[in-house]
């Protein structure tokens, strides 16, 4: 059983088609890196896998469960990190994570462990709106892995992180199966087991990472 299986996946927003006939497979424990210019459909793909959007064509499966039909089985398995942190600005990092931990049935120990893990223990009592973008991203990463998901869906996870912060959170995002979007082949190709290149919603590149060069990826942006 594959961790992720996409078959002829399609999605539109009104008249605008953002994904057409995308197929890919990710085996458990592997990393699929999705490259593509802005508007290529990368974020939409992740939101479908996270059960936040329904596919309009084709199917998407996570650990054998269809995301549209069996969303309630998929959700505990998935950690989603998008462009928005999905955190309340007027709550502190600790309050945000404690609230979400209750939704996931996790205890306060897990919250403290993650605050320490992302290096936010000292600022955990300050409202999120007073923190820098990079700090908020670190809290969002803690949110993503709060329930120890088997599949991580990461939309440019290191954006707005300084090198030290990126190195600190990397171990948290390095386990399990990953679908990662990126614009940086030099940084993320070495971490990939497979590559999916999207342009205009179509899969223009789908190959094992060993067969893909940085120049191939850059060709998607031409």
């Amino acid at each position, binding site marked *: 059983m594959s961790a992720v299986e996409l078959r002829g996946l399609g999605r539109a927003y009104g008249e605008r088609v953002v994904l057409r006939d995308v197929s890919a497979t990710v085996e458990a424990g592997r990393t699929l890196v999705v490259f593509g210019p802005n508007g290529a459909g990368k974020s939409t793909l992740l939101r479908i896998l*996270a*059960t*936040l*959007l*329904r596919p309009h064509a084709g199917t998407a499966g996570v650990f054998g469960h269809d995301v549209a039909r069996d969303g*309630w089985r998929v*959700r*505990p398995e*998935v950690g*989603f990190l*998008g462009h*928005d*942190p*999905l*955190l*309340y*600005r*007027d*709550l502190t990092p600790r*309050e945000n994570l404690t*609230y*979400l931990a*209750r*939704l*996931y049935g996790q205890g306060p120990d897990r919250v403290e462990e993650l605050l320490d893990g992302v290096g936010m223990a000292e600022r955990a009592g300050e*409202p999120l709106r007073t923190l820098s973008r990079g700090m908020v991203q670190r809290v969002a990463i803690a*949110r993503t892995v709060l329930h120890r998901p088997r599949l991580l869906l990461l939309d440019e996870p290191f954006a707005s992180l300084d090198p030290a912060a990126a190195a600190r959170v990397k171990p948290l995002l390095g386990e399990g199966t990953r679908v990662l979007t990126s614009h940086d082949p030099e940084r993320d190709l070495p971490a990939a087991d497979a590559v999916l290149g999207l342009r205009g919603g179509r899969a223009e590149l789908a190959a094992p990472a060993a067969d893909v060069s940085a120049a191939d990826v850059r060709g998607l942006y031409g």
Partner: protein
Amino acid sequence: MRVAAAVLRKDLRLELRTREAVPAMALFALTTFVIFHFGLDRRSLEGELAAGVLWVTLLFAAMLGVNRLFVAEREQGGFDAFLLAPVDRTAMFVAKAAALFAYLCAVELVAVPAFVVLLLGPAPGPAFPELLAVLLLANAGVAAVGTLAGALAIQTRARDLIAPLVALPLLVPVVIASTRATAPLLAEPAGSLPAKWPAILGLYDVVFALLAYAVFDYLLED
């Protein structure tokens, strides 16, 4: 219930911190009573007119709370964070309705005494327990319908317009029943609470709470 309690606790914490809903609702009610005080050009009100002024004011004040109920969820990603969690989605309805109920009770703690001082002729002392019962029954109905309307409106761009347009027609029975139930209590001399109207309010609460509970899940779907 664990999840609903977590969402409710978070909502009350956010309201205590930001004070976006309850102070605005209370201020609106007080201002409206002052306008009625001068606009009606009467030294005091009683009976049906007093009950009508009280309930129409409370209903419009409630609309301010309805409009604010889902703003943080929409603007700060709370909906997505909640939808990603493997929880029963109707827990959000229960929590939001409970939060709105609490806001209404808090507003009435200020608004009803202000109404008595500014507008009411007869002292409501002996009828206070019956008035309290009607207030609680009406609040439950407003909370159920208001939460449903708020969830519907927040998906649209004109949410401040849509919420009252949806909620107010549905709340006409609450105004009728509450006014008829309250009028004898605010008369000189005070009458007794007619059993029929509280019963209608109770029935309305049960029907709309069940209806809202049944359809709320679909409002959150993509």
